[in-house]
């Protein structure tokens, strides 16, 4: 069943068309990757779909309902949560409090929320930092915190914008495992990432944006072979390394 359906989405910033007539869909239970050159409009796409920006054209359906133009907080309450590429921790709050803010989306009972947040922290591996202010975390851990906070809102669809940047290959492997475990909880994932070691093995399908337009879609292997994608995005070297 289709969880997210985006039809002909267009988003402009002044004269710049950041998303140009883009259509995508995500099935319930899938992991879908979104890749594309820097500045292709991936983050903008996430922002527009999640209601952070108002679209200039097109429709967004989530869980069978039209949510086009719905503000982001309402979208979140319906079960779609996104993380920010440029992390936005609540710096003066502790790690636990950060995650509790997310968990409050589903309950107002403090003890319940706390337990839920602790569980999520445990899950992402930040439990030992729970009582420290978020400001002092390293960038990678701030990204992990973004992820935890989003998870705490109990989303049906989780949209991750480059939460795995800046990790060593070893850490990347751990992150991929984490994604799998999230997926096992029944959460559908929509992921933007430049690290092919992450995207390629875990995605069921991959979309490619370039210059605001969708240039390709399909299973990862196909995408990796796609001439246009190699030219615009992967580069010959990546291709050669895999080949």
């Amino acid at each position: 069943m289709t969880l997210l359906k985006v039809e002909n989405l267009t988003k402009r910033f002044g004269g710049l068309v950041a998303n140009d007539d883009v259509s995508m869909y995500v099935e319930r239970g899938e992991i879908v990757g979104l890749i594309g050159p820097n500045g292709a409009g991936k983050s903008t796409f996430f922002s527009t779909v999640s209601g952070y920006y108002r679209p200039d054209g097109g429709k967004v359906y989530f869980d069978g309902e039209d949510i086009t133009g719905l503000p982001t907080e309402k979208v979140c309450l319906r079960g779609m949560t996104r993380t920010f590429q440029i992390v936005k921790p609540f710096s003066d709050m502790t790690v636990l409090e950060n995650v509790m803010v997310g968990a409050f989306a589903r309950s107002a009972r403090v003890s319940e929320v706390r337990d839920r947040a602790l569980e999520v922290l445990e899950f992402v591996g930040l439990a030992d930092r729970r009582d420290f202010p978020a400001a002092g975390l390293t960038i990678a851990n701030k990204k992990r915190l973004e992820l935890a906070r989003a998870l705490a809102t109990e989303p049906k669809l989780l949209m991750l914008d480059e939460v795995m940047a800046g990790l060593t290959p070893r850490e990347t492997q751990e992150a991929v495992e984490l994604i799998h475990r999230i997926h096992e909880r029944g959460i559908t994932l929509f992921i933007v990432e430049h690290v092919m070691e992450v995207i390629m093995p875990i995605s069921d399908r991959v979309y490619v944006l370039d210059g605001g337009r969708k240039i390709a879609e399909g299973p990862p292997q196909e995408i990796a072979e796609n001439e246009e994608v190699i030219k615009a995005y992967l580069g010959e070297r990546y291709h050669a390394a895999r080949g």
Partner: protein
Amino acid sequence: MLLEVKDIVAGYSGVPAIHGVSFSIEEGEIVSMVGANGAGKSTILKTVSGLLRPERGTITFAGQRADGLPPHRLVAMGIAHVPEGRRLFARMTVQQNLIMGAYTQRSEAERAETLAEIYEIFPILKERRTQLAGTMSGGEQQMLAIARGMMSRPRLLMLDEPSLGLMPKLVTQIFELIRRIAARGTTILLVEQNVREALELCDRGYVLQTGKVVAEGTGDELLGSELVKKAYLGL
């Protein structure tokens, strides 16, 4: 020896993040520094460039004591630091950003010459010189950040995760670029999470763990070591 770092301790709000790190760089070398998240790589670069004051230890650059000096003095001595996250002046144009990079260079003529050279290496920047830096794409911004760092004609260029958040094609380009810059005689200190590429590229490397140097050697030696294989490459 161009840069000699001895036993430095530095951190935030009095809490050390690196504990007695020592390393050195010869003129003309490419040196990589790898390590897990939070190992203190950025902290080391910040200390060398003067953004952080070491609590202990000495830094010698080209024979002169360099620890405790403010960043603007160190730039004048020939150290350039391209920080994590680009840190461009988003509301200024590409060209203004570049000129700011050459702020210490007082001679108009020399500056024009450097600018011309940079534009030759990065033709896209020349094309976009009147665009506001903040409106450029991630890859372009990263190039601008590196170019800006080169504008002061540094003897030592320190790059902090230049490939972060860049698409695969650009990652390849950036590493090639670094190689080219090094070939022109600039000494390079590179911090990277792309452990493999970084170690392949460098002459020598250091491995950092929880604020300490735990291994050093040539790039190939490190790539072959068990430590790096297990802890960083996940093999």
